[in-house]
């Protein structure tokens, strides 16, 4: 007993930030960005709040699912941070939807969506929910230093949502953590406490790119291998693999090691950049909408991110 997806939705801000605009802002180029990362454009919040984007994704998913807000038993938002520190983004969505269920956010950085599926499975397995809404959303544009050419080119804003019900379509799931603040971190704010004796760094993302690359490729390979082994499946049985869309080079490196065919590998990093927790459900939503993923297809999701966290799962659509 686990869960199944009844509906999926996705949304992004209206402003499309191209590599050429970025080249006018910091010392970079379309060529450098494309070859190092595969990113060509990303969407950035200007007037929209993250809540706006979430509501667009959530209402789309709810509509497809046919589930009403009053029927929801739980809302979970994987997110690094919503528009506010409190209330949680999930609580704001609950209010806007007119739902009356409990709601909480999960911060597993870019692995958030897989972490949320793991939590959801536990609720369904325990008989504590009939319907759940997961809205994975991040606005990395507010946590990066727009003067740092190494990081400001990597990220975009967006949201992906799924409505879940009891089912048996989640075949295997694995999540991991390996606490480390040296490779990938966004410092928290310290306010104006007159008593705090530590520093007050700005809340900008900093990352040791090469070490993170290594962690990401190794995690993706190990996690996908582990979940396939758990259910006795071969990589050839999988219709689509949706990796977290951090960087095309990570994805390609892992894909080669795993022996993935081109038709199996799903990418969208060129169009969205790294949207953190939203990156997988955005592409899942696209594939379901287009019909490229259909009932009976086996899809593998694989994520990795700050924490350091990682996770993978196998779903039958």
């Amino acid at each position, binding site marked *: 007993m686990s869960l199944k997806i009844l509906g999926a939705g996705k949304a992004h801000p209206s402003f499309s930030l191209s590599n050429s605009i970025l080249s006018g802002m910091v010392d970079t180029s379309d060529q450098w960005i494309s*070859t*190092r990362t595969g990113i060509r454009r990303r969407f950035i919040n200007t007037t929209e709040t993250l809540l706006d984007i979430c509501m667009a994704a959530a209402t789309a998913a709810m509509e497809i699912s046919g589930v009403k807000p009053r029927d929801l038993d739980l809302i979970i938002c994987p997110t690094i941070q919503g528009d506010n520190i409190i209330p949680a983004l999930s609580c704001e969505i609950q209010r806007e939807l007119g739902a009356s269920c409990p709601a909480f956010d999960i911060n597993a950085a870019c692995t958030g969506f897989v972490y949320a599926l793991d939590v959801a499975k536990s609720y369904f397995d325990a008989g504590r929910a009939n319907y759940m809404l997961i809205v994975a959303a991040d606005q990395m544009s507010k946590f990066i230093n727009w003067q740092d050419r190494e990081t400001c080119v990597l990220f975009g804003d967006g949201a992906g949502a799924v409505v879940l019900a009891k089912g048996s379509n989640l075949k295997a799931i694995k999540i991991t953590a390996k606490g480390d603040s040296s490779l990938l971190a966004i410092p928290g704010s310290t306010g104006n406490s007159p008593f705090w004796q530590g520093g007050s760094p700005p809340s900008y993302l900093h990352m*040791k*790119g*090469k*070490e993170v*690359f*290594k962690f990401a*490729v*190794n995690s993706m390979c190990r996690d996908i291998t582990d979940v396939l082994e758990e259910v006795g499946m071969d990589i050839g049985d999988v219709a689509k693999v949706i990796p977290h869309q951090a960087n095309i*080079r990570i994805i390609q*490196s892992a894909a080669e090691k795993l022996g993935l065919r081109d038709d199996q590998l799903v990418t969208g990093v060129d169009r969205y950049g790294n949207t953190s927790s939203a990156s997988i459900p955005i592409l899942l939503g696209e594939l379901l909408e287009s019909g490229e993923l259909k009932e009976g297809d086996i899809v593998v999701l694989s994520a990795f991110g700050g924490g350091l966290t990682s996770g993978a799962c196998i779903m039958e659509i």
Partner: protein
Amino acid sequence: MASNQTLEKIAALISEDREIDIDSITRETTFEELGLDSLDTVELVMAFEEQFGISIEIDENLRTIGDVADLIDNITG
């Protein structure tokens, strides 16, 4: 100074992986000369880790094949 054996193993790995003539890979050859960017270098280091069964911390100063060979020999003793 890294042993010839380590250098040869590295050169062979790069030669096969990147389809480069093995004779053109020497101690002094830089990754840049081989047409490798920083992420290609990380991938290579990962291949070396697998080959030698060790963990290599990515150092900003890994510029030449000799640099990597020395590092590997230091780790493997």
